[in-house]
């Protein structure tokens, strides 16, 4: 947690200096863009965290552990990939859900498959943006080229975690 803070705020510092060297206005523009984004999240993140915390209280932990827990192996990775594809909404919802599921006992490889599926397949994004804009052929080609990625990521993580620890 401390290392995350250090990484993020060092980046803020470096990029801030680069922007400032360009001009004061550049820095101001960037801060305004960040604030516009943050405004929208001001209510959404606390509410999403609250809702998903209650979700953890209510979810039966045995169910989570058996289906996509740390011991669920490749079957769990496949289930997680499908679940991730169906996860609705933007990051302000899916990341609190991910944390809630983690606390309920989901395994790290399964979680990686889930998050990757959420971002690669993104049913909501595909239907709302990609289909109307890019057309069916493009989507077919993109899915045919990336449908195997989330399960492969989960399996690679499972193998990697035999050698390294992320605790």
């Amino acid at each position, binding site marked *: *947690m401390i*290392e*995350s803070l250090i*990484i*993020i*705020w060092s980046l803020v510092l470096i*990029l801030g200096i*680069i*922007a400032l060297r360009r001009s004061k206005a*550049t820095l101001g*523009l*960037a801060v*305004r*863009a*960040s604030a*516009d984004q*943050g*405004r*929208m999240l001001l*209510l*959404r*993140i*606390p*509410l999403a*965290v*609250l*809702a998903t*915390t*209650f979700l953890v*209280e*209510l979810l039966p932990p045995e169910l989570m552990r058996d289906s996509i827990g740390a011991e669920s192996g490749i079957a769990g990775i496949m289930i997680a990939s499908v679940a991730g594809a169906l996860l609705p909404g*933007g*990051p302000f*919802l899916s990341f609190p859900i*991910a*944390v809630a599921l*983690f606390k309920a006992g989901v395994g*790290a490889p399964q979680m*990686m498959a889930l998050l*990757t599926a959420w*971002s*690669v397949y*993104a049913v909501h*994004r595909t239907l709302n*943006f990609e289909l109307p*804009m*890019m*057309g069916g*052929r*493009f989507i077919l*080609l*993109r899915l045919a*080229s*990336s449908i195997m*990625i989330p399960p492969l*990521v989960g399996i*690679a993580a499972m193998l990697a*975690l035999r050698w390294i620890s*992320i*605790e």
Partner: protein
Amino acid sequence: MAKNEKAPLFDRTTIAFVLAALLGAGLTLWLKGTAGVERALINAGDFMLQVVPQISGGLLVAGLVQVLVPREIVARWLGEKSGMRGLWIAQFAGALTPGGPFGSFPLVYALGKAGADIGVLITYLTAWTTIGVMRLIVWEIPFLGAKFSLLRFVICLPAGIFAGWLARRWAKQWGWSTTESIVK
């Protein structure tokens, strides 16, 4: 989630979240009693204290990158390149592109219509979704921690190139010889 007009603070999504939180609180109270609600509230509060300093930093990084790397630069990177070199450039561009689908799809559409290589476009989108650095910094590291996020990032590094390479092969096999015939 690129720059947009000022969104109202209380839109439909936010109201849905309020309802979900209230429903969750009600069910928890009913099934687990006040102790359950109390536990959940303390957990949520703890978690917010952890996440807020990181998310605020992440948002600043995203804002800075958005201003420092305009989309025209990305478009120029992707426009003319092909071959493996084109895929590598697309990979970097995708990883560094900030923001959500509102910004990226118009760019990809415009490049596709202009005849950019299909492998380049698929690599760009896949890299953007799997190793997008902005999502990593704003969301994944604050919520899931640096070690988890960096391991997933490293594992996903080959994904973009792989998908673009595969897309070229599929397009050839299916007889879609030009990008214009694929993009609607």
